[in-house]
């Protein structure tokens, strides 16, 4: 009974904070709503006996990715954002599409049947603990995807650096602008003095 109430609470909070996250005007409030959503998501992972993924959800999503979003939001100007329209010109098209998709997905869910069961039952995972079981799978069956995941992170690191770096030419022209602009002012002063 307790677990049903816990699931209901998490589901309610996830739905509410998700809807608030896409409808609030201030982007910082949106990011904070998504933070609340991620914490309740971790709670749901706990009800599914996935403790390691709950920890990863909080550490990586709430700790790293959302902080990245917050930093980028502070880099772009927020003050203008508060006075502008948050939605596109006719948002009801998007809302109708999303609502139709939700209705279609919820309609087909009862037709789903489970397939063959694997070897990792709850008792088998409990014997070796969840982290060790997942690690065993990750480093044996999924070794190649794991390495590719590391490569993807490296590409993201280099790509983020290359995108966020200023161009060499741009800085030179900026420096040249800054160096040249005071000069006419000085010459003006000289002319005025003469």
């Amino acid at each position, binding site marked *: 009974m307790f677990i049903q109430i816990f699931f209901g609470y998490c589901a309610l909070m996830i739905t509410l904070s998700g809807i608030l996250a896409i409808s609030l005007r201030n982007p910082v409030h949106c990011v904070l709503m998504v933070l609340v*959503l991620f914490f309740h*998501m971790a709670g749901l992972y706990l009800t599914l006996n996935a403790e390691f993924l709950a920890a990863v959800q909080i550490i990586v999503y709430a700790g790293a990715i959302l902080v990245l*979003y917050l930093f*980028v939001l502070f880099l772009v100007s927020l003050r203008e954002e508060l006075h502008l329209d948050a939605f596109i010109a006719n948002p009801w098209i998007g809302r109708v599409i999303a609502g139709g998709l939700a209705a279609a997905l919820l309609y087909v869910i009862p037709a*789903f049947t489970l397939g063959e*069961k694997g070897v990792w039952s709850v008792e088998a995972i409990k014997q070796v603990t969840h982290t060790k079981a*997942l690690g065993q799978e990750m480093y044996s069956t999924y070794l190649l995807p794991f390495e590719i995941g590391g490569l993807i992170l490296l590409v993201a690191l280099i790509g983020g650096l290359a995108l966020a770096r200023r161009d060499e030419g741009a800085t030179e022209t900026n420096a040249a602008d800054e160096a040249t602009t005071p000069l006419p002012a000085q010459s003006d002063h000289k002319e005025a003095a003469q």
Partner: protein
Amino acid sequence: MIPLSWYMALSAILFCIGVCGFLTRRNVIIMFLSLELMLNGVNLNLVALSHFLESLRGQAFTFFIITVAAAEAAIGLGIAIALYRSRRSVHVDTVNQLKG
């Protein structure tokens, strides 16, 4: 015990909230955030199926999805910063140079 269909319904709703945010918001950063919501909906579905199928395949996939989501956030936000630097705006409807 919570039935599987509850988890699937919740993840479908979360996915559709993400779709709605992606289609309606103007700010590129909030659009990326909606993308994260969609990925989380899929993650919840995979973890629930992995629990009910007694297999760790779905959880391994969730792990990789979190990795790719981190990479996607880094690249996407780098693009957003580059966009803001050249346009002084992160709104998608102001980026219409190729519209003709």
